[in-house]
């Protein structure tokens, strides 16, 4: 199983503390999104994970191997996309990906297979043979993603993977991440500015502000609040739901939140609803990341 462990990580740029005593542990295949305002320290965090910068103090390990001490081994099966890289402009997209595949140990047949697969996956066939110097931002971003994905890494570290892509490209990348998760036991650690994107693709969301982790869905008991959607709208003003150990908040006419009190579990809460004759279309654990974000992140 792939594994990432960050312990008491501090990174200073001169006087500025970009990361302060940061801790993060990912020990099962999942997609983890990092949200946070500009300058929060997202990129800094991902850079220490990929040996682009070294920690001021603290440790970063991948599969138990220290990234700063043994980067070669630690990054063997890690695909990375950090801060919109550039390529040597005289190389074609194909050559850029080929080089990455080769240093990750691919032979000629494997290189061809990977190239065919990735160019199809990221819809790059049209310009793969052109020099990267002539690419648009979004084309480069796709090549970056291909470089990150080449040779089926067990861990993907992506800094704003949908940055600079057109709407279709964004959707394709999000679907790609969701599919990767489904197909393989892989850890994806990505940063993004889009709360909706974080919600859509990830199993766990972390909010970072001023170099500190201020929220982690893994630390919240998700079962506390359940979001319920009914099949038919009801009249909120006159409804009189008598539910035991549950606090009710309506979001609109067909959706509301159930806050479970006194150790009430969610299946019991739902069966109370059903016994009162409400038709439940959908119920899910509820985390309002957006609200958390706006509340906790400094202006």
């Amino acid at each position, binding site marked *: 199983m792939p594994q990432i462990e960050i312990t008491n990580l501090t990174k200073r740029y001169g006087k500025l503390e970009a990361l302060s005593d940061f801790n993060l542990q990912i020990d099962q295949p999942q997609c983890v999104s990092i949200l946070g305002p500009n300058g929060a320290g997202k990129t800094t965090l991902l850079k220490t994970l*990929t040996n682009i*910068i070294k920690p001021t103090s603290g440790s970063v390990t991948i599969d138990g191997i220290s990234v700063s001490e043994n980067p070669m081994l630690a990054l063997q099966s890690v695909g990375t996309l950090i801060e919109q890289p550039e390529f040597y402009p005289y190389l074609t997209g194909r050559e850029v990906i080929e080089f990455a595949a080769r240093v990750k140990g691919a032979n000629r047949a494997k290189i061809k297979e990977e190239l065919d697969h990735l160019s199809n996956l990221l819809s790059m066939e049209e310009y793969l043979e052109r020099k990267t110097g002539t690419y648009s931002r979004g084309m480069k971003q796709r090549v970056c993603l291909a470089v990150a994905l080449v040779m089926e890494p067990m861990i993907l570290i992506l800094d704003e993977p949908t940055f600079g892509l057109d709407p279709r490209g964004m959707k394709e990348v999000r679907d790609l991440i969701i599919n990767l998760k489904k197909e393989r036991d892989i850890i994806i650690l990505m940063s993004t500015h889009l709360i909706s994107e974080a919600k859509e693709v990830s199993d766990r969301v972390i909010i970072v502000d001023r170099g500190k982790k201020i929220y982690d869905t893994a630390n919240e008991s998700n079962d506390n609040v359940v979001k319920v959607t009914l099949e038919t709208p009801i009249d909120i003003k006159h409804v009189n739901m008598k539910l035991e150990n549950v606090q009710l908040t309506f979001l609109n006419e067909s959706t509301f939140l159930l806050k479970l009190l006194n150790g009430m579990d969610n299946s019991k809460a739902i069966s109370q609803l059903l016994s009162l004759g409400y038709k439940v279309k959908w119920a899910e654990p509820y985390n309002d990341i957006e609200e958390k974000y706006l509340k906790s992140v400094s202006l």
Partner: protein
Amino acid sequence: MLIITILVSLLLTYFTFTYIPKLPSLFSNFKGFFNTPGFSQRLVGFLWSFVLLDLPVFASVFFGSPAISSEIETRTAFYVFPLPIPRYILLLSKYFAAVSVTIAVIMVYLVVQGIVFYMVFNGILLLPFFLSMGLTILFIFSIVAVTFLVSTIFNKNTYAYISVFLLYFLIFNAYSIISEVLYKVVPYYLLNNSASIIERVYLNISTGFGSFTVTPDGAGYSDILTSLIIMLLYTIVSLAGALLLFERKEVK
């Protein structure tokens, strides 16, 4: 770079063919020496190798300076550094690539020189020519190493370019002059002074302050050996320094 090299070599070719017969009258100070066999070739060789003290510096700065700094300036570092390639391999392959191109360019000059000498001196190429060539190649190894060391320090190409030039042409020279004026010693341990062996194998001209001595012979073997060791040391120390710095290099 190649074009500059070719132009310079053509210029010297022209000069050689035009002035060979007039040499004794041009260098009337050395009149006595022209009886020494091979002196003409030594003198002309000395003049040709004059360029070899600077040309490799230009070429190496041109090919070597951006080696590391450009990775950061153009953001390709974000692509290359996280790939599982040991950094020392990255640095050494870039080093040997830069050394090879520099040697290739300088070789154009040396080959032209060889051909001209072959024609002018009736098919006789003296030992100093080959000594000078070998030492030039060693000089290239060391100046490229120094250039790489500087390149790993900076994140901007222009800083790397300027620093190598300043270091080599200004700081080394200034230090030499100050040392010669104040202490009357030539700091033989500076790279530019030891590189002068490239021309001194033809004619041992020493331009100590206020004195100017010429011998019709080239520098002796102990002189050559000293310079050889110094250039080797520069190569090894600079490369080791570059490797160490590069291993710790951050892309901020």
